[in-house]
């Protein structure tokens, strides 16, 4: 049981690093952004995991139910807004990639550096 609980944190670590690997080792800019979104998702998962209370339920008070245990609402609020902010900033990143493609004719980091060196 203890290990099953820790498994959530392990998955967080693994996902974080899968995203990080894509960011540092891939040359394609869109692939880097996809990696970044995996990284982001891992952080979301960590917050929500820490807010869970055993035997709890979602923090929406039900009429007629007394003494219910609620999970922590605070991380949920932070992540809820972070998801929408995340997609907006991701779109901004994609917009920058599109502009790079238009100016350089490529979205590979390697090509772009070569063109810049010239």
């Amino acid at each position, binding site marked *: 049981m*203890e290990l*099953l*609980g820790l*498994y*959530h*944190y392990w*998955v967080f670590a*693994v*996902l974080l*690093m*899968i995203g990080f*690997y*894509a960011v*540092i*080792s*891939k*040359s*394609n800019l*869109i*692939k880097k952004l*996809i990696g970044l979104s*995996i990284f982001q*998702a891992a952080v*979301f998962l960590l917050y*929500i*995991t*820490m*807010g*869970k*209370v*055993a*035997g709890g339920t979602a923090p*929406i*008070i039900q009429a007629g139910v007394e003494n219910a245990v*609620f*999970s*922590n*609402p*605070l991380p*949920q*609020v932070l*992540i*809820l*807004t972070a*998801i*929408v*902010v995340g*997609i*907006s900033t991701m*779109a*901004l990143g*994609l*917009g*920058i*990639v*599109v*502009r790079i*493609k*238009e100016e350089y004719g490529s979205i*590979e980091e390697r090509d772009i550096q070569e063109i810049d060196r010239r």
Partner: protein
Amino acid sequence: MTIIFGVFLLTLMVITALAIVHTQHLFVAVILSGIFSLLMAANFFLLDAADVALTEAAIGAGISTVLFLGALTLTGEAERYRSSSVNRVVALGVVAAITLMVIYATFDKPAFGDPQTPVQQHVAPWYIDTTANDIDIPNVVTAVLASFRGYDTLGEVFVVLTAGIGILFLFSATPTRRKKPQTEQESEVESTAEIKFGEGLRHFLIPQVVGRLLIPFILLFGLYVQFHGDYGPGGGFQAGAIIAAAIILYALLEGEARALRVIPQWVLTGMMAGGAILYSAVGVVCMMLDGNFLEYSVLAADPITGQHIGIIVIEAGVGITVTGVLLSIFHAFAGRRRF
């Protein structure tokens, strides 16, 4: 038992993430990230975060696939280079080392779901207790989002607005071609291609009919999520994404040109700014009525009614801004010609 379901879904998530990073085909990576987002939403739901799961559902199913595909249309869809083996070994080494360190650190973490940890003891019970007395709406998440931490949410809305403005600025620039100037033939091809691009899925009869049938229901559901957010999972962020998804569906079926005729860009720009201004205006009105910034209690004679009014108005502001920004972003990508 549900913890085992959670573990199973988490395992599927890791497999999906590995496949996303491994594949060379960006189109496939985008399809797989749709699945990844679904698994993420399921996990949030199992971890008692219904509001977050709803947000992830609205964003992941409706918006993010569309945006990524829009970008892929403009940039091309295959990775040209594999990273060199030295590069890969170094990266893998760094990644493996950090993973092991983080996993080592998890053994010091408090047990999963332990109610005695400091994080569960400190602020959260206060929020849950106070919501029932001071704000009197069932959804604690909405109460914290809109009232207790309203200033924080105002900041988030402005971040979303800034991202939207950034996209509009970026795409207002016309590309300067460095190397090969366009030949006449090429530009001709492009103009015919543009006519084809404008018409959407108009020739696919069945999606057309069913899509038209469903758009009113999606819009209605969006409004339900918007205004039911005080009582169940929902709120401005989710509703904005759902309504934007409905309009995006219309644009896919009928072509961007018609969607832009229904809601022109100047309306969208007005929505982007208007929602944020509505939100801040509530704060200013509170100050004029001798309260603090965003202290809704002064909005009505009864503090609880004041809170209700404030929350409904600022959630509407959030919804309007999110809809405007997401739709502007979509039109910016979809209306861009391929160069």
